[in-house]
């Protein structure tokens, strides 16, 4: 695929809600060229092509010289949220068609009598029961009845169904019925899209499996259309390299795999940002990080331990109550474990019925925008508060392309100030304080669920609003070191270029460790290994660069939760099984503080991560050309109750190795870094800013 040295340029693209970011990496010049264009929601391909044209133009390079284009997209997520997917049907084991609707039977809000759940992606009339049954061991109890398939297929034909999900009970243990049903469907309807659950997610637990399979079927026709338009558009511009996508697990996958399992692309943009964070951290020799991405609408937090992002086997999309766990559709796809809270630059501040200050979760977004944008918004937002506190420069927001209106911000925050009976800067501080507190609280609960002491991590910050707020969040968390990487504004696009090819494969087999059938386990692993190698071949990963990482989901018998136990190899001998038992005990102890002596242990699921090599990181990520240092200007900046005369510098004027101390504001087109009083900082050779906060940072801001 890579056609010699000349073709080694690479493009990374992140399609966000408002902006499409494009980053071009040219290893010859070791330069990074980046661009931001507006996202085109009706057809995101247009925005990508606009951005690619802009960046290639700026770099005076040709698409023919680009080896690969890797991108992250929220298209699949949006299709589910906006219900723009295909007309979909579901075939289930007879008697179980409502699992998709009744889910976990749990209320996500204890006190609301009016709570609602997202409407299932397949209405009940298209959920069709099929006579068949397999038991937990994989034994066929009732053979698949072709006569019960016929009326289902007639209904599919009559209703003009475009895509079908097939999900039978225990198909993870024996997929033959699902395969057979899929085969008959394709036979009768050659143009129909069919997703079967044992292929998408061969994992025990019927609700997450059916929910994920249905979501896959629902977005498949749309994603296939999008990918082929993208391929066409790019090849029309001379692109002959490899088109790849970032999956929710933070790795890259090629178009063929994306077409088969498009649901693995959900939430891929944020995953790329976290991947970049983890890589940068390792380059800096920092393996324990808290990634903090604060944009216009939300903030996202992700723990990175031992250089790897946290990982989750399940997350939710299309939440009805945006930040309420349980109010969305669960997708059991391996993904980067991040939490999202409604705290961004556009978050609206108000006094609630108790007279308390609330910030978010609703956002003024890009339209009507914060009051200071002067484009119609009049509600006080976090950005308005940041402006009044002196953190933001009204003449240099987004590099001066979006001038801010201080009077409008003052008027909007003034309304709050009246209610709070304090001066306007105090009210602005209260908004700043509240939003920092809610982000810190979310991080603490998240860290506690993971058993991590956040004080031992460093905060790596990106996103437009992140570097303004990072110090306040860090000091609340007891984190002393904050890192603002170069290109913090386009880090997710950059992350696309740092991601490795990666496939997460799994297969449930419930096996008792005391009576482990080693041959059976090895057969399962062999099957996964064969698939993993084939996928890597398909993605162009040479055999010597393959990395296969095995793990087993295990638990004590009778428990229903599992821990993931990484293993070097799948055990083949009695001694290896004994070692596995010890390893499980060790992992369990690390997670939960103790082992349960004498309790039988079970293996539930065998997992394989099949990955390619990690792309090399360019020496410098800095896209600034150094300019002669200008004399700093000075402006009053509010830190808590008082305004401090604070020097303001341009990021471009700082060279590697330079040291500075707060209070200080560092401005660049992509964002503003706030260095609080008492903090010290330096710029490293990668262009990252490192802040060290004072040991006893003022928490309540005086």
């Amino acid at each position, binding site marked *: 695929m890579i056609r010699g040295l000349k073709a080694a340029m690479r493009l990374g693209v992140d399609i966000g809600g408002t902006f499409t970011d494009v980053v071009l990496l040219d290893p010859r010049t070791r330069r990074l060229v980046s661009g931001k264009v507006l996202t085109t929601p009706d057809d995101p391909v247009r925005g990508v092509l606009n951005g690619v044209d802009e960046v290639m133009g700026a770099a005076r390079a040709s698409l023919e010289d680009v080896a690969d284009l890797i991108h992250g997209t929220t298209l699949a997520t949006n299709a589910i949220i906006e219900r723009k997917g295909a007309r979909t049907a579901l075939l289930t084991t*007879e*008697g*179980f068609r*409502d*699992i998709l*609707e*009744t889910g*976990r*039977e*749990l*209320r996500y809000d*204890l*006190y*609301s*009598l*009016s709570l*609602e759940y997202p409407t299932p992606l397949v*209405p009940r*009339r298209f959920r069709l029961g099929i006579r068949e049954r397999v*038991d*937990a061991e994989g034994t066929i109890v009732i053979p698949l009845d072709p006569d019960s398939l016929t009326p289902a297929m007639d209904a599919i034909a009559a209703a003009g169904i475009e895509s079908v999900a097939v999900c039978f*009970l*225990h198909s993870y243990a024996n997929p033959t019925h699902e395969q057979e049903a899929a085969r008959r469907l394709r036979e009768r309807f050659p143009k129909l899209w069919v997703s079967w659950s044992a292929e998408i997610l061969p994992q*025990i*637990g*019927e*609700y997450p499996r059916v929910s994920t399979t249905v979501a896959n079927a629902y977005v498949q026709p749309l994603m296939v259309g999008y990918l082929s338009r993208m391929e066409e558009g790019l090849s029309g511009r001379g692109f002959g390299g490899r088109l790849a996508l970032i999956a929710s697990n933070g790795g890259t996958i090629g178009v063929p795999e994306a077409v088969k399992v498009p649901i693995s692309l959900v939430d891929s943009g944020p995953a790329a940002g976290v991947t970049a964070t983890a890589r940068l951290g390792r380059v800096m020799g920092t393996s324990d990080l808290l990634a903090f991405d604060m944009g216009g609408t939300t903030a996202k937090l992700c723990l990175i331990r031992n250089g790897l992002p946290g990982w989750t086997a399940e997350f939710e999309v299309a939440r009805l109550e945006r930040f309420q766990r349980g109010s969305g559709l669960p997708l059991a796809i391996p993904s980067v474990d991040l939490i999202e809270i409604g705290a961004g630059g556009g978050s609206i501040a108000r*006094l609630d*019925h*108790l*007279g*308390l*200050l*609330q910030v978010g979760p609703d956002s003024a977004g890009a339209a009507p925008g914060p009051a200071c944008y002067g484009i119609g918004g009049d509600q006080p937002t976090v950005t308005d508060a940041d402006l009044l506190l002196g953190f933001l420069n009204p003449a240099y927001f987004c590099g001066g392309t979006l001038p801010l209106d201080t009077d409008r911000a003052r008027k909007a925050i003034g309304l709050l100030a009246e*209610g*709070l009976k304090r001066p306007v800067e105090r*009210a602005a*501080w*209260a*908004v700043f*304080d*509240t939003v920092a*507190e*809610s982000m810190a*609280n*979310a991080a*603490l*609960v998240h860290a*506690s*669920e993971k058993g991590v002491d956040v004080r031992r991590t460093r905060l790596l910050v990106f996103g437009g609003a992140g570097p303004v707020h990072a110090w306040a969040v860090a000091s609340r968390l007891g984190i002393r070191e904050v890192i603002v990487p170069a290109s913090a504004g386009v880090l997710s696009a950059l992350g696309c270029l740092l991601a490795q090819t990666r496939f997460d494969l799994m297969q449930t087999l419930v096996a008792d460790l005391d009576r482990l059938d080693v041959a059976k386990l090895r057969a399962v692993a062999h099957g996964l290994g064969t698939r993993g190698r084939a996928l890597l071949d398909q993605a162009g990963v040479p055999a010597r660069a393959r990395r296969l990482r095995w793990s087993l989901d295990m638990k004590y018998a*009778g*428990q*229903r*939760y599992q821990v993931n136990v990484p293993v070097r190899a799948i055990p083949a001998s009695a001694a290896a099984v004994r070692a596995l038992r010890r390893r499980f005990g060790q992992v369990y102890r690390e997670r939960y*503080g103790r082992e*349960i*002596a004498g309790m*039988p242990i079970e293996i539930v699921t065998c997992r394989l991560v099949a990955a390619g090599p990690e792309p090399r990181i360019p020496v410098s990520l800095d896209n600034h050309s150094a300019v002669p240092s200008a004399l700093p200007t000075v402006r009053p900046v509010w830190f808590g109750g008082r305004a401090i005369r604070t020097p303001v510098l341009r990021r471009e004027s700082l060279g590697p190795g330079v040291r500075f101390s707060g209070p200080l504001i560092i401005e660049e087109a992509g964002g503003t870094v706030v260095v609080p009083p008492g903090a010290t900082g330096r710029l490293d050779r990668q262009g990252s800013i490192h802040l060290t906060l004072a040991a006893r940072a003022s*928490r*309540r801001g005086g």
Partner: protein
Amino acid sequence: MTERAPLGPGRVPSQPAIGAAELSRPAMSAADLEVAWSRILSIADEAAAALVRTAYSITIRESKDLAVVLFDPVGNALAESAIASPSFIGTLPRTMGAFLEWCPAPRWQPGDLLITNDPWLGTGHLQDISMAAPIFHEGRLVAFVAMAAHGPDIGGALYSAVTREIFEEGLKIPICRYATAGERDPIVREFLWNNVRVPEKVIGDLEAMAASCRIAERRVQQLVGELGVEDFGVFTGEILGRSERAMREAIRGVANGRYTHRVWMDGFGSPLEIRIAVSVTGDSVVVDYAGTAPQQPLGINVPLTYTYAHTAYPLKCLFQPGLPNNQGTFRPIRVTAPEGCLLNPRHPAPVSARHVTGHFLSGAVLLALAPALPDRVIAESGAPRPQFVFSGQDARGRRFTEHIFFVSGLGARPTKDGLHSICYPTNTTCTPVEIIEALTPLRFERKEILPDSGGSGRFRGGNGQRVVVVNSGPTPIRLSVLADMTQRGPKGIFGGRPGTPTRIRLNRRNVPSKVVTDFPPRGRLEVETSGGGGYGKASQRAVDLIEANVRDGHVTRKDPIAGGRPARRSGR
């Protein structure tokens, strides 16, 4: 039965927990208050997350049957975890009051851990253990943390509703010191160890609770350190005051009056009546259960703590669903029941299945208040959800005991239908069919929404479900049924029709709602859970809703009252 034991949220002063000196200080600013308030809520959440993560009990880890509550030094509840059982939220303040009575505040020292599972002081049955720990800052008692969690075992016979005295139900732990200044009491530990089936898990869960207490302790100390002890007192007084004022204001919006209702439960053989009178006077509510059936020689009696919890819970849903819960929201609510009745039994009444009765109270409260709050109440829901305990051996000879719930339909609501098959008024998650089948010889033939089970009306009650389970193993399974609502369906309101009753059949024969029996090999257990009651007259149901119901098969054309004469489209 004339004696009344009024029960507030616990035997604690109803004044704000701050001294006169602190009262004279200016109130905190709204912004600082919000920051501290969200912090203390997240402390409770963090402690709950730690408990979920480290507990052994499946009901804690999977069903999340627990609650963590922070208290001020005199026992006012300040904050509760978001992951919480409505029962425990209501009982913990009372338990904390009992701990403080047993050991007055000045006698606590750092590292103390008090525990109890006394149903009359705790959660209403022996299965849950409550624990409390003091929190000191620079030598001063500043707060308490308390929690309750469902344990893995407490000894006694197979868990059932058919007990005659509490002594059959397991080990009762009177209030005692699990630890004194950090030192575990070996005698307490030995008593526990020798009376339960899985001692290492029971002790393990207590240690998980202790660890969770320590997390709350550290975080509260940090908060107090930042605010200062004085300001922390101001802060706690302030949030209690604000919640109380908001709750009272909401109650003032209800017309004064005495709202009464009666609901019937199956009981055992002959029906039992629950009588409720909700008296709204100004800004407070007194709920009285005078006239309710006497206590029974069956484990369905409800200690007053649990009666209080399930009475206060629907009131909170009605009046201030969005407000963080604390002692302030409880203060305007009083609950009384004659001693010796089903809802305030005398020791040693059996109480193991107190939830089977207690889950009726939420419906009773809502039905009683329907005339006063027609746009907020919902019709009666399918509560209690039937519970089944299966205990036996699988084909490999391994013993298993599984608690399985099948949830019912939610009552119809003032502006929309009830939800199908959802857990109410408690909140536990269901175990996946595939997991039950992997752990036991049970095989499911069906688990599906039951059409037509919700009561018809302008808005329909949510449908229940139909579940068919077969014993596919070679040996009989002991089956304990803890259910009710089999003799009538959940009531509709404002002309809405009732939902269907719960039906439980074993090999085509009806099974009583409370029984322990054999589930033979190849036996077939069929359960139909109740649908919720309807809201408003069926003749007023919008035609598009009727069409959608029929199209999706939630209502079949067989239903004689599928919606009556369509009146209008919805949304007009």
